[in-house]
């Protein structure tokens, strides 16, 4: 067993994802570098990874969100950018955890559409989504229809 000495103690890391036809990660990175003071910004294929003091990272994230609020998404990350335990440059293949991001990236266009619609519309006027815990019984007429379809 060897001693572990952490790096970047007291810092936070955030992902900034872009799901937009108008903004690219490079645009965001350029804007991020313009307004950053003492933070580390890494440009990736899906957006940015920003590491630094919490207040400074939050300020940059808030500024970046203003560029395209409905198409920029932010989440926390445990590891700093380029950490050898996570970076695919060291491990090869997709970064552990990327599968989850990749799956949610396929859903982001629907969420972005929802945010755009709700900018103009009150959330109270939108009907609730289906309750996932509700398992409706099979309607008897639907069952009869299925049996008839099989028999014919």
């Amino acid at each position, binding site marked *: *067993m*060897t*001693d*572990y*000495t*952490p790096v*970047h*103690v*007291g*810092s*936070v*890391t955030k*992902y900034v*994802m872009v799901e937009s036809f108008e903004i690219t990660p490079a645009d965001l990175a350029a804007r991020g570098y313009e307004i950053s003071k003492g933070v580390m910004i890494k440009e990736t294929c899906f957006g940015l990874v920003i590491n630094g003091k919490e207040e400074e990272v939050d300020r940059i994230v808030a500024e970046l969100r203003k560029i395209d609020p409905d198409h920029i*998404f*932010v*989440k*926390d*990350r*445990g*590891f700093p950018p380029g*950490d050898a*335990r*996570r970076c695919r440059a060291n491990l090869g293949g997709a970064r*552990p*955890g990327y*599968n*989850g*991001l990749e*799956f*949610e*990236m396929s*859903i*982001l*266009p*629907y*969420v*972005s*559409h*929802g*945010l755009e*619609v*709700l900018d103009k519309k009150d*959330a*109270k006027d*939108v*009907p*609730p*989504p*289906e*309750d*996932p*815990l509700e398992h409706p019984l099979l309607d008897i007429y639907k069952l009869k229809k299925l049996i008839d379809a099989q028999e014919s």
Partner: protein
Amino acid sequence: MVKVFIYPATSLILSDMVARFGHTPLSSATAIRERIQTAGLESPPLQITPEEPKKGLKWAAVEVPAGVRGRMSLYGPMIEACEAAIIINDADLAFGCMGCARTNELIKFLVHQKDIPRLELNYPKNEEDGVKFVAAIKRFLTGLGGAK
């Protein structure tokens, strides 16, 4: 600001929505960050040491596999600290080994046991669902009050 537990705890969409509407998301990244930034013994990749399954005994019995108890040492404190929860039920991305699967079941069970405001959803499958999904989250988070 209300502490909102999200499931899947790694969800980008839920983490963003909770922060966007002025609350604090409790996600696995913050729990991992605590361990990554704490000095101790080297235990890559997640700095989960043999101490974690012992801490997990608070939420799972000793017969339960160490994988579940180790994971619960990350999620258990967050479930205890949360004041509201958003759960996505058809989150296939949370699929994993038996350790992950059983931990997921236990997380949902503990959240259901807790008497807190809870929103249950499925991922949207089209744009219409997307509007309902975002509206439901917005209504829920606004109803919690105290947004930043």
